[in-house]
């Protein structure tokens, strides 16, 4: 890229924007093959599962061979595989994932109904993890080697090792069955969201807490922190103004990674709390052999994941210009 003439601020700013635009364009182009490959993979689910899709649609028992053959023709299952793939992808691009084998509802409609619930749970889980994790990490670092530090790190250690679905069951036993404070199942209100979000966020919370702790400890050693203290600033100002801001940068990078992890985790948590959502829809579809729905659920989840990672990368490139020139 051409060096902007010295002294022209607006031009320099313009070139910075060009750099960012180039980066975004490059990243967008880079995800095209991934999405294409993903579509091939999702398409092949239907063709790799044992059995004839038309047979599965009609149910397993005693169907006339003629009816099956008719349906095969109607669905285009006798066409060459690449013709079928192009039909699949052109429909998918228009948001058409076919109809459920079981309920005959359009899959896109089902996904649209279920997605907000999953999104809500994932965001709530992530928010829980970040808020509590950052808090725990800071306290642990500032009071290093104290009782608080040890307890925080013990929580973090249990957090990574405790299966989220079991933690969810424990929460239900304690808060729903014993204390009768919060509902065990269902969705809709904030009360329904608290336990699932906590169960989902626990693992990420532990990761965030450990990261923040070591990051804060690193920043505390920096010269500018010593300078700030030497200036006579109160400890509170030093921590909040100087230490915190700088030690939270690595947390930003991790958010994308954790979002994906939580999106995957929601599959299990939705089942624990009998909560509606994409994950529960997909799992039930797998158990029901309703592969049309499985395709839609897997495709949508992976797409959202790719999109979030893209956004995180772009925001990171925006925060740290060095990333753009890799």
């Amino acid at each position, binding site marked *: 890229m051409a060096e902007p003439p010295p002294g022209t601020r607006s031009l320099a700013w313009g070139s910075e924007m060009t750099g960012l635009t180039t980066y975004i364009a490059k990243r967008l182009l880079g995800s095209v*093959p*991934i999405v294409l*490959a*993903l579509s091939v*993979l*999702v398409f092949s*689910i239907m063709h*790799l*599962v*044992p059995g004839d899709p038309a047979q599965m649609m009609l149910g397993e028992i005693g169907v006339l061979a003629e009816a099956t053959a008719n349906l095969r023709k109607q669905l285009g299952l006798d066409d060459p595989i690449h013709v079928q793939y192009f039909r699949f992808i052109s429909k998918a691009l228009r948001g058409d994932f076919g109809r459920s084998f079981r309920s005959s509802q359009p899959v896109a409609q089902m996904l649209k109904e279920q997605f907000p619930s999953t999104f809500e749970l994932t965001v709530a889980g992530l928010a829980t993890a970040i808020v509590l994790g950052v808090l725990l990490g800071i306290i642990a670092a500032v009071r290093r080697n104290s009782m608080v530090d040890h307890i925080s790190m013990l929580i973090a*250690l*249990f957090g*990574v*090792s*405790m*299966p989220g*679905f*079991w933690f969810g*069951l*424990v929460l*239900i*036993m304690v808060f729903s*069955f014993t204390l009768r404070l919060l509902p065990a199942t269902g969705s809709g209100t904030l009360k329904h969201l608290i336990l699932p979000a906590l169960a989902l966020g626990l693992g990420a919370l532990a990761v965030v807490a450990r990261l923040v702790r*070591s990051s804060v*400890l690193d920043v505390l050693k920096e010269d500018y922190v010593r300078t700030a203290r030497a200036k006579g600033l109160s400890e509170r100002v030093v921590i909040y103004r100087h230490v915190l801001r700088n030690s939270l940068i690595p947390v930003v990078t991790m958010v994308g990674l954790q979002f*994906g*992890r*939580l*999106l*995957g*985790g929601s*599959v*299990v948590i939705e*089942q*624990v709390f009998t909560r509606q959502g994409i994950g529960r829809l*997909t*799992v039930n579809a*797998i*158990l029901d052999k309703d*592969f049309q729905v*499985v395709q839609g659920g*897997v495709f949508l*989840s*992976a797409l*959202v*994941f*790719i999109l979030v990672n893209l956004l995180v990368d772009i925001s990171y490139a925006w925060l740290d210009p060095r990333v753009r020139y890799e």
Partner: protein
Amino acid sequence: MARVPKTQQEHAGSQAADRQEIKSPFRLAFIRLRKNRAAMVALVIVLAEIVVAAGAPLFTGYDPVEINPPDALQSPSSVHIMGTDQFGRDIWTRILYGARISLQVGVISVTIATLIGVPMGLIAGYYGGRVDTAVVGAMDLMLAFPGILLALAIVTILGPSLANSMIAVGISAIPARVRLVRGSVLSTKENAYIEAARALGCPVTTIMFRHILPNIVSPLIVLTSLSIANAILTAASLSFLGLGAQPPIPEWGAMLGGGRAYMGVAWWMTTFPGVAIMITVLGMNILGDGLRDAFDPKLST
């Protein structure tokens, strides 16, 4: 040590001691690991679990699978220390046999991942070019799936069963290995001794497995320990969802899934299998952390 004049014999002895000072990286790592108290506790947990899994019938008088309706849903007592499930099966017995399954799942799926992932990483890193692009692309695709979803897609294709869940978990663990090995190969292959081996006409496989792979062994061991923990957790999740081990297999995740409906009346059905999973995963994770610190003291915090 005080320096005193040595006799011939003493001199020979101290030479031997000097020779002992040169320790292999593995010995050094082991010495460091032994000083790490948490890691040693974790090692004991893991070893104890292996013993329990191997000798499961020695620790119980019950059968893990056979149903016994009159004993259904009994709370923990001296007869059934962890209570019984809805079919009257002893939970403690099922946990013991479940340890076998969990360890199997961890070891087999990580072995699958290693056998496929390590050669792929070696080849991609060593040859570079198009092979590398293809491998990295495939791995990026696999990583485009959030968390457990790739395993779910694979189980969909293969059908729900314990064996298939191991395959699914193993396949989803491949990218981590490929990345690690490929990265290490890229940094190792520029060394002069690799060039020398090539100049001497060493076959490529010899260079890969004898000259490059040994450099990667320690990070690979650490990754293995951590990913066994992860594999056990993911496979348990699949079984919990009904997509892994099928009843009546005493798998911990499946036990949790089965006990979910009885949570209000039989807390022991979900509490003990959960504790079992947690202790196992905790042990593997702490051991993995300990191994990492032992192999690379610079990284320890």
